[in-house]
């Protein structure tokens, strides 16, 4: 089972994507790859009436997501070679690149789109929770990158005390994979399944 998880404070995130780039830098990710994504979820409308008066019920919020190292990890379930595995020491889900055949089942199955097949490398790639740093008793790079301290990482029991298990749009219903991501939602946050809003930054997420 998972031991660690991520914390996301939706009231503090300003969608700057520093977490994304700190991760890309640490993991030497070239164009086309990012292990963390910041979604901008937008709804409502801003209109002008015949007299020129503007009214708006627009709402927008962000969610920064990487791999949630889920308790019910479908990526592990579908992996034909057991390359996708849980590190016995940290519980973080990692890819054993020596075994991975790059079939892409994990990428297809993950509702958070965390794993991706890197064709040049010939195997799946994803956030491993900075497993190397965790073993060294350090925090993942994304956590320490956030200028507004919107991200956290820790033992799941600690995270449960800080926030609620993520269950907001545009992410999937939590019960599907039991994600280890706990959040403090912003005022704008909407429940899973909201149908009057959309991911407004498709070009900014890989």
């Amino acid at each position: 089972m998972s031991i660690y998880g991520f914390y996301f404070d939706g009231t503090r995130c300003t969608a700057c994507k520093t977490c994304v780039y700190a991760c890309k830098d640490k993991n030497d990710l070239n164009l086309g790859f990012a292990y963390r994504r910041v979604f901008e979820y937008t709804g409502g409308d801003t209109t002008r009436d015949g007299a020129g008066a503007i009214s708006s019920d627009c709402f927008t919020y962000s969610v920064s997501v990487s791999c949630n190292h889920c308790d019910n990890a479908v990526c592990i379930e579908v992996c034909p070679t057991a390359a996708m595995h849980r590190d016995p020491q940290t519980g973080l889900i990692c890819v054993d690149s020596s075994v991975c055949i790059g079939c892409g089942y994990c990428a297809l199955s993950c509702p958070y789109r965390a794993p991706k097949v890197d064709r040049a490398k010939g195997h799946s790639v994803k956030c491993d929770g900075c497993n190397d740093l965790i073993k060294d008793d350090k925090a993942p790079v994304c956590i320490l990158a956030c200028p507004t301290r919107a991200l956290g990482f820790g033992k799941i029991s600690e995270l449960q005390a800080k926030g609620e298990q993520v269950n907001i749009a545009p992410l999937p219903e939590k019960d599907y994979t039991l994600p280890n991501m706990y959040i403090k939602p912003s005022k704008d946050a909407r429940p899973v399944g909201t149908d009057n809003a959309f991911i407004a930054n498709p070009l900014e997420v890989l």
Partner: protein
Amino acid sequence: MEKPILETPPTPPTPPEPPTPPTPQDLPTPTTQATAPTQNAAPTQASDAKEGMLSRRTVLKAGGALGALALAGGVCGGVLPRFFSTTPTAVADPEEKIVWNHCAINCPGRCSLKLHVKDDEIVQVETYAINDDDIDSVQPRACLRGRSYRAWVYDPNRINYPLKRAEGTKRGEGKFTQISWDEAIELVSSNLKRVISTYGNESVYINYATGVSATTGRTWPRLINILGGYLGYYGTYSTAEINWITPYIYGNSSAGSTINAANEAALILIFGSSPCETRQGGAVSNHDYVAMREKTKGKIYLIDYRHSDSMIGHSDTWLPINPGTDAALVSALAYELINTNLVDLDFLHTYCQGFDEESMPESAKGRNLSYKDYIMGTGYDRIAKTPQWAEPITGIPAGRIKELAREIGTTKPLFVLQGWGSQRRSNGELTAWSICMLPLLTGQIGLPGTNNGLREGSYAINLDSIPAGDNPVKTQISVFSMADAIDRGPEMTEKRDGVKNAERLKTGIKFVVNYAGNCITNQNSDINWVHDIMADDTKCEFVVGSDIVMCDSMKYCDVILPDIFRLEQESMIGTGGDAAYMIAGSRPYGPKYERKSAYEAITLVARAMGVEKDFTDGKTEADWIKSLYETTRSKDASLPTLETAREKGVFTRKNPKGCNIALEAYRKDPVENALTTQSGKIDIYSEKLAEYIAAHEFLPDDKVTAIPTYVPEWYGVETTTGQFPLALSGFHYRSRTHSSWGGVAWLKELNPQELWINKADAEPRGIISGDTVRVSNQFGVMELLARVTPRIVPGTVATSQGAWHDADMSGDRIDRGGNYNTLATHRPSPFAKGNAQHTNICQVEKLG
């Protein structure tokens, strides 16, 4: 638009009987893989690291080809090679060392960079961070730009050798020939000598540039002052209008409260500012605003035409308004406050001049010139500034304006702040002044939880910099007038063009120094017009540039000196927001290729000009850093020694007062602490400005007043046309500081250049998100991607400023980089003669 991508039910787990790889040609077959796992095994740390380094060096080699690329006529737009390793980074490598340095771009975050350096290469960029989410601890964490430095340092656009404009080509073509340092210095020094002896020192100009901030970062002024001086400028591209008007309002006591002063506020009004986007670091306004928002009990309104990233997750803080109409809103609020007796008359009469007839100076009495007369309809225009009057201008319903006025008049403390977005407009000076009226009308100045209506102040560590010396040439032009002074210098006068300290210019600009800046074209207005002036080398005869990458402005240089990033040098910077910090940077590795630090390059010019000793004072840059820091330390003993500072990298300090409050001393004792304005008070009517207006020439549609008034923009929401029916404005972007980082593919990928457009304007044009659109007006044409969003008011479109201009200037001149300065007028604002780059109208069409 793709709907909830993530909510699509995932593919059910498929029992994996030997799966067929999606693209067998690219991948080892499952069988091979299963029987020979070592074929794909992770390399050992050593070979891993080696491969990483090789891949990085490949880039350096590609970058080194710049001279050759340039000869082929393609210095920009090269393909970014794969500069990152295809294998994971090795960690805890014993050969890896940590070197502290700082970001040096005009943010002004100048955040900490913790560089991992191995074999003379940066292999990772971290930042100063304490392992907690404590929002109160001072942590100047670098933003995504800082974390992307490797992509910039190893950018194929880096300049590695001295270059000169290729024979037979014009400025702007961007074709260069590699030359030696000797030849470069000879060209610069001989032209400088020739220009000074032919035209005099007033013909030499050091262009506004903000790409480097460090105590030893900018030494061209020092050299040229030694050589007899240069034509100076006043103002900045960021603050031209507001900084011009502020002394008329507050004298020299204009520093704003720090953001955390609003922790105590009950109502917070923020005009034209997105604190989370403009200064993104972990100890400047991005952090400070988020921390304040979390702590304050005050209700926040961000008054903006755009739902900025500062409102993400907090959409109820958005009060949408038409751009360029903030002064109309304030005027209507003032009308309501006066009408409902919610103004603080005691404060206005004690601390201010010119609110009403009673508080007007003798010279202006009896002529209905007061602010109250203007607002109530008894002033010069005889129009009462009622909420009904303001509704069609601002787009805010009259009823909403009345409610807001009541809230403002009855909620204290009131904290009013403006960014620099409201003032970068054709009516910017009077708009900036108008916004200050809200705290004045309500007496909410100099008290806990208040601000003076200007930009937030900071608590910073100020370090001594290399002295520039005195400029013997006293004549100045506005910062925005370089191209004019090249084109028609001797025609420019004090009365009409804002020349200072002389009735007119003696000569045009003939020699330009452009160090670490992109304001020749990219950040200038009306790029097409500037191009034509710069391309003609009979006007300005010589341009020397110095930069790290081949940005658009470099293409207009005759000689380019290859610079080194500050983070590649010893460097020091002090700055701050709510809290202060200082970073002492060390050198991660020596200079590469033929790059030289600016100090070293300028020293070579000084030597050629025979003034090396005067310039250096016998010191190397390292000597200067040391002696300057000792000078600072002698005034502030709490600072660490240089050795300690370098070892720790980052030194932070909280404000011992907790926060700064603007005009605190003046509020306490307005007589003892009288302001340096003409009246000694806060001027709502400025006699001095009235005199200035009387003595200067303005264009007929430049409405100028000695009180804060609303003036419709030349090209604004009230002056759109059938041909150009939309207003066009700009904002700061997450991936750039102005144009810095603008060429970095790594950042561009996830930060696309987009035009924000409301559905009401997109639908009739058949535009959906992701379409390429063409935006045009009388000055130029640009193309970029559309982002259809409710986050912008109808009737206005906007894009982020600072994108790299990308046009075939000998062809169609369509800017495919999406730089809206292509469409910005070069007409200066009436008082400051500053850039009004947010004042534009345009048409938008879907391409193809």
